[in-house]
């Protein structure tokens, strides 16, 4: 505790010591002033010269994006060198005048130029801002010629993405786009900065982390003209990893050629592994046109085209499966023992169910049909009977079990799940009860039922494998190593349906192709192909309006899906051609050409 018996203590001793220190402080201040005088006034010229010749600048060494190759090593996407023009604001003596001159030189609108520069407001003034990329040689030489007059404009060599085969597999590969300021602010891309290109769709997006390397950085010493005098630190770029896809170049090319001039999709899978050998969607586009940082009109046209060329119909096209769904119906009916393979129904060309007429596509009628002949001839009457006996809930259950209504899990972005309707769905979405007549439509693959071509292909593979499902995937390897756990297919599950049930359905599929059935257009000598056709009629206008309200456009289409050979499945082919007419007429012959190619490749 403090003593309070003295009112004022005897403090002069310590106060004197304190004041001595104060004098020392004063002395130091004088010394400081003299030091600064020396540095700032006496040596001013020396430091000024040093400051002019001795500035630092950080330069980015761009990394190369990884290559994308097909399963045999053919290059599908690579990087080539291209020139871009950049402005360094720090070197502008008069910013307005510089913009004027540069806009004129590069043939840009001055406002456009300034818009581009404005995005980099918070960057240091020495940072080079790209204002035009993919310069032609002529533009490059014009800029070089003006180098002395315009030191603030520099040329930079950048790697540019190039797709040597134009539109081949463009939907699978995807394209790149510049990161927008909103993207940066959303903090989803912590390692990127403004001006970087990022994959937007397809493989470029799905595996962007592998493909994108890390830019290098150099801290350079430059003089006031921007000439390099030396380096302080250097960090080398880390190049992107190259990817090997499961695609087969020849099969992919054939598939795309077959679709030329049409709208549709083709999927070719390796039956046992789920590796995607071809994934084609038409109409298509040339991703090389998107490589510029700055949105070309062409891209805007593509976005707004009513044919949606940018949409990958194989994953995102929603269609009625039509008669192809009869395979699923057959499996469902056999497994729930509603019928056996000998159960027979009589097709007279039309019938009445619940008081409504339902017709078969073959007006004269097929006569007596059992399971395999029903599949072989794609008899509607036969399957109406199955539908009536199964009921929509059972159909919903089996369809969901066998892979419809959910994503296949393919490693490409944007896959749609399709729809398997039932009473609960209808009540929830349409606020109406399910009518038994709708079950009849669903049993031949019509009604609200929606699938994607990829789902059909995967379903076919499941049948080919006698009940073992596969997960379709497009990435084979990352730089010769198999990808991490997350990418290879999960443990294949079985549908819980016995293999001989599958055998019975497969028998019908074999007859469809090889025994004069609807799929005979796909027949290849010596290759036991098993398949199913599908063709849907045009829907009623009322229905079409309904679906438009749900934001889905129902298309008429020609389907074929099949696999071969029967006893040792190698390959699955699924073809969908919009407005193609009957499955047998259009889709099946296209499939035949693909099966032929696969057969030839195996020899």
């Amino acid at each position: 505790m403090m003593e309070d018996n003295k009112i004022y203590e005897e403090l002069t001793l310590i106060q004197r010591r304190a004041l001595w220190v104060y004098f020392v402080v004063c002395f130091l201040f004088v010394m400081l002033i003299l030091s600064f005088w020396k540095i700032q006034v006496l040596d001013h010229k020396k430091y000024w010269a040093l400051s002019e010749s001795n500035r630092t600048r950080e330069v980015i060494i761009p990394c190369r994006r990884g290559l994308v190759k097909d399963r045999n090593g053919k290059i599908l996407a690579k990087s080539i060198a291209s020139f871009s023009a950049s402005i360094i604001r720090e070197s502008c003596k008069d910013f307005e005048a510089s913009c004027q001159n540069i806009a004129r030189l590069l043939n840009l609108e001055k406002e456009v130029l300034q818009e581009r520069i404005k995005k980099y407001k918070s960057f240091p003034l020495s940072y080079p801002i790209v204002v035009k990329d993919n310069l032609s040689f002529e533009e490059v030489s014009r800029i070089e010629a003006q180098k002395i007059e315009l030191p603030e404009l520099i040329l930079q060599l950048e790697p540019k993405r190039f797709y040597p085969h134009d539109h081949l597999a463009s939907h699978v590969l995807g394209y790149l786009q510049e990161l927008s300021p909103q993207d940066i602010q959303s903090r989803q891309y912590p390692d990127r900065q403004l001006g970087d290109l990022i994959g937007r769709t397809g493989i470029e997006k799905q595996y962007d982390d592998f493909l994108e390397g890390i830019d290098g950085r150099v801290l350079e010493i430059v003089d006031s003209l921007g000439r390099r005098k030396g380096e302080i630190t250097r960090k080398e770029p880390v190049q992107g990893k190259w990817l090997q896809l499961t695609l087969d170049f020849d099969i992919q090319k054939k598939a795309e050629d077959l679709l030329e001039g049409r709208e549709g999709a083709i999927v070719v899978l390796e039956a046992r592994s789920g590796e995607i050998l071809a994934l084609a969607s038409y109409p298509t586009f040339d991703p090389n046109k998107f490589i510029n940082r700055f949105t070309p009109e062409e891209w805007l046209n593509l976005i707004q085209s009513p044919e949606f060329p940018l949409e990958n119909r194989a994953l995102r096209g929603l269609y009625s499966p039509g008669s192809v769904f009869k395979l699923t119906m057959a499996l469902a009916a056999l497994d729930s023992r509603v019928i056996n393979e000998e159960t027979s129904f009589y097709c007279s060309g039309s019938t009445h169910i619940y008081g409504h007429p339902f017709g078969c596509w073959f007006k004269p009628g097929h006569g007596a049909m059992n399971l395999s002949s029903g599949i072989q001839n794609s008899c509607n009457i036969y399957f109406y009977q199955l539908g009536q006996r199964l009921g929509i809930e059972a159909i919903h259950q089996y369809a969901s079990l066998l892979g419809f209504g959910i994503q296949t899990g393919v490693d490409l972005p944007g896959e749609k799940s399709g729809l398997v309707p039932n009473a609960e769905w209808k009540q929830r979405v349409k606020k109406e009860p399910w009518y038994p007549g709708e079950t009849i439509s669903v049993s031949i693959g019509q009604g609200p039922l929606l699938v994607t071509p990829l789902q059909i292909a995967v379903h076919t593979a499941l049948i080919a494998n006698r009940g073992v499902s596969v997960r379709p995937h497009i990435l084979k390897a990352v730089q010769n190593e198999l990808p991490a756990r997350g990418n290879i297919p999960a443990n294949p599950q079985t549908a819980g349906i016995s293999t001989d049930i599958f055998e019975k359905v497969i028998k019908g599929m074999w007859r469809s192709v090889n025994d004069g059935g609807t799929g005979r257009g796909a027949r290849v000598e010596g290759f036991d192909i098993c398949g199913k056709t599908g063709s849907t009629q045009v829907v009623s206008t009322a229905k079409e309006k309904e679906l438009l309200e749900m934001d889905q456009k129902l298309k008429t289409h020609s389907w074929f899906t099949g696999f071969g050979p029967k006893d040792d499945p190698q390959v699955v082919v699924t073809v969908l051609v919009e407005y193609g007419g009957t499955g047998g007429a259009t889709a099946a012959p296209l499939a035949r050409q693909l099966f032929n190619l696969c057969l030839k490749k195996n020899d």
Partner: protein
Amino acid sequence: MIDRRQIQNIDWALVFYLLLNSILGVFIVYSGSHYLPGDYYLKQIIWIIISFLALVVFVSLDYKFLVTYSVYFYSLLIILLGWVLFFGKIVSGTKAWIKFPLFQVQPSELMKVGLILFLAYIFAEFRHPFLPWKKLWLSSISVLVPMILVSIQPDMGTALSYTPILLAAFILAGLNRKMVIIILVCVLLFGLAFWNLGLREYQKDRLTTLVFPGQDPLGAGYHIQQSKIAIGSGGFLGKGYRKGTQSQLRFLPARHTDFVFSVIGEELGFLGVLAALLSYFLLLSRLFLSVKESRDRAGVYLIFMVSVLVASQFFINILMVIGLFPIAGIPLPLLSYGGSSLLTTYLGVSLVLNVKMRRFANV
């Protein structure tokens, strides 16, 4: 608490000098950081307000009360320093910060105030003309403990900034020749031990660069070189507010903190430097000369230690900026960006105000 007559005795000039330097700091911080994301100058203004409020609180408490119970404040800070080693947020490679929802605090900065109060307590009843051994060891240990805790973070700069406080206490207490020699020997031994065992590579580099600046012009000496070029190229009038060529100091880790004075030199020239030095001199003079106005021993110690603290940090930072002291991460009080440093300085000055306004015994 305060009563009216004490308010009359508040040294308003001191408050004015304090605020003057703080506002100067805001302008300079703005220039040094306006191109960085994050509005540092705004944060600085908020911290000035917070520190000022803390100052008002501290001034309302009688300093004798603070000194008497300083041991609790000191212990609390020791605990916080220990806490920060385990739970602290890592910023720029050191575990120095405790994060609260809206702001963060550096206990190592506040420890300076804690030490000042505690040392004042130790020496308060000290009547002998010279320092006895027991007090020497007690005070040394009470400084050594936080120093070690802080250097583990690792923050050598702040740890070393505790020594002027101790030295100030010793000077007042009086050292005889024998003690001076022993202290020098201890420091030497410590220094050698540290050099070989404790110092990391970059810290050793900083010291060698001091003596041989030309040896590694692109490495550790580069910052100092660039700082001098910046200051020197400013000339008599400077390049203009916010017109300092940023490329000079682009890579300097903290234009708005440690190297703030380089910005003043480059942008405001010799005249600006003179003005800043003058403004600071007014503050420091006021602080030192207040020693005469204390009526008890503890008060003298408090005022003197606060003055030495502010002065030593000031000189170290300026010397560092012109290359006469190794880079030590010591901020310039009031002018550098830094909430904790600002708070500490304000609390220190509040102690001086405190002593001065209660100097009349009948109040």
